[in-house]
């Protein structure tokens, strides 16, 4: 069947992409001249013993190709090495950071999807009116703001009202679980809002143009001729079709959001994956940087794959 063909094709593509990502990772960090790990002298505070240990662990004494297979083998066992800075396994550190990043990103993304698609649909339906112009201008405005700057502006505005950084209040002793959750939420509000607003602009514009494209399709004219109400035409016919490009684009953007959260986490000192990337750059903590980069790439590949599968679910033309 053609449908099964499609799924198999996309799966193969995803798997191959993972290998390409792994290889790029290897080249950037180990194979390129002067690259990070091969130049262990740059590791701050490394003793002779540590250096020898690292050299052995990474197999730097062996030829490049063999190094590559050692590297793949280690990855297969989930071994991303040990962080120079914390002396903890990188995988452990990354999981913890990811656990902090995901709820923050999720909150902002849900906000953006909800409001963005709503105003996008409204703008398309009211094309050319003041509502349309206002939505597009607002969308373009937020889309144009540098993320970190928007975060700083929110900090300026909400200075004193909302916590300016971190994930929890250090002076909140022995909080009850409920207090803890509320505390985290309070800290999460500004970073999530920053992300939400930036994405809101993008999603409004995406939804609007996808909706405009479907509103120009012949079956919308048919639906009108059938005597359907505008509301029904918009929801059942136009949006249902516009969802194809919209879900794809949103799923694709989700992959980049994790990466894009670097700036936001930096502004609000949110201890997530972005912050981890920042610190590993500062400390030249290459195992950590390499692990984080790999994770970010994999998240893009993963959401790409999700987008492909969603498309399959939403478009009967692929299923067959």
């Amino acid at each position, binding site marked *: 069947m053609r449908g099964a063909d499609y799924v198999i094709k996309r799966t193969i593509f995803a798997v191959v992409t993972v290998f390409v990502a792994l290889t790029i990772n290897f080249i950037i960090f180990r194979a390129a001249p002067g690259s990070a790990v091969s130049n262990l002298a740059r590791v701050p505070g490394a003793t002779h013993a540590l250096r020898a240990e690292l050299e052995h662990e990474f197999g730097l004494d062996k030829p490049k190709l063999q190094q590559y297979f050692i590297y793949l083998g280690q990855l297969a066992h989930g071994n991303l090495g040990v962080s120079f800075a914390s002396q903890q396994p990188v995988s452990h550190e990354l999981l913890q950071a990811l656990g902090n990043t995901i709820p923050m990103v999720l909150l902002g993304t849900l906000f953006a999807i909800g409001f963005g698609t709503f105003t996008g649909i409204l703008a398309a339906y009211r094309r050319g009116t003041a509502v349309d112009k206002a939505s597009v201008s607002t969308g373009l405005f937020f889309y144009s703001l540098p993320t970190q700057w928007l975060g700083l502006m929110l900090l300026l505005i909400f200075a004193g009202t909302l916590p300016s950084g971190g994930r929890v209040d250090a002076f909140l002793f022995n909080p009850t679980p409920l207090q803890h959750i509320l505390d985290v939420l309070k800290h999460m509000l500004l970073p999530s809002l920053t992300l939400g607003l930036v994405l809101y602009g993008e999603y409004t514009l995406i939804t609007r143009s996808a909706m405009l494209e479907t509103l120009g399709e012949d*079956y919308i*004219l048919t639906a009108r*001729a*059938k*005597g359907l109400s505008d509301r029904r035409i918009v929801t059942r016919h136009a949006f*249902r079709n516009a969802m194809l490009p919209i879900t794809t684009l949103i799923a694709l953007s989700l992959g980049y959001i994790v990466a894009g959260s670097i700036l936001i986490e930096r502004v609000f000192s949110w201890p997530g994956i972005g912050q981890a990337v920042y610190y590993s750059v500062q400390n030249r903590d290459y195992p950590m940087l390499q692990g984080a980069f790999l994770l970010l790439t994999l998240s893009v590949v993963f959401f790409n794959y999700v987008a492909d599968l969603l498309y399959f679910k939403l478009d009967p033309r692929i299923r067959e």
Partner: protein
Amino acid sequence: MTSPLLAVQDLEVWFDLPHGDTLHAVRRVSFSVERGERFGLVGESGCGKTTTILALMGLLPPTATVSGRVLLEGEDILEDGETSVRPHRWTDISMIFQGAMNALNPVQTVGAQIVEAMELHGIAEGADAKSQAGQLLEMVGIAPDRLDRYPHEFSGGMRQRAAIAMALACEPKVLLADEPTTALDVMVQAQILLLLERLSQELGLTVILVTHDLPVVAEVCGRAAVMYGGEIAEVGPVDTLYHDSRHPYTRLLFAAVPDPTGEEEVVSIPGAPPRLDRPIVGCPFQPRCDRAFEPCPTEQPRLIALGADHQAACHLNDPAFRAVS
């Protein structure tokens, strides 16, 4: 039957263009259609024929301004625009579109789209609606078990059949068919036309067929109107238009051979249709007319009755001018 089923009176349509320009797409169009009649609306592309029938159902974009009356059994359905026309959509007047390529929603099954119309207008619900939809498919020559298929699984001809089935879901009085056979291959074209003719006879359905394809009109329709530059140039029985036309445009049109590939309407009348975004002085066909004479560039011709059921808008038929020529 004293009043006709559908009467269009002085229909005019303008479109707003950028920079404040206006396009006067349909100009003083009047015609009427009886029950069970098959009426053709013929002309080159851009002559206003499609705009005319879209106006009948109130399916024009917000850039359009409409005036005139569309009387369905004596009731002016365009009187309050969208509000007054919506109750008549699909229950009284339904429509099929060009080639049916995209007229069906690609993400809904064909059955669901037929059932949607029935449920909306309270014809039938649930399983009952589905079985009726199956009967409709059967009536247009599609196996009822294909209700659960998606449009892309149908061939072009089958899609158009399904669109016809959907158009009949609420037992309308009038079916508007806008170039229903373009983009279909010749064999399928003939089948679709035959189907339309049969349905019209069996169900007493009135069909208004819009096309640039004259043989199609000759085959299916009893009467037809020829449109040029947004106006009706001549209207009458198809036989009369063929053999006793009183308008040079109709004559040239019927003498011209349609492009054999059927893809583009290459009609070998020299010149181009008038631009509708500018005022037209005199007869719109005058610049291309081989029989134009003194009054044509300045005087606008009116439709003149030439028989019980035959009218043409040409100064050649006007006794007042004929004396001069």
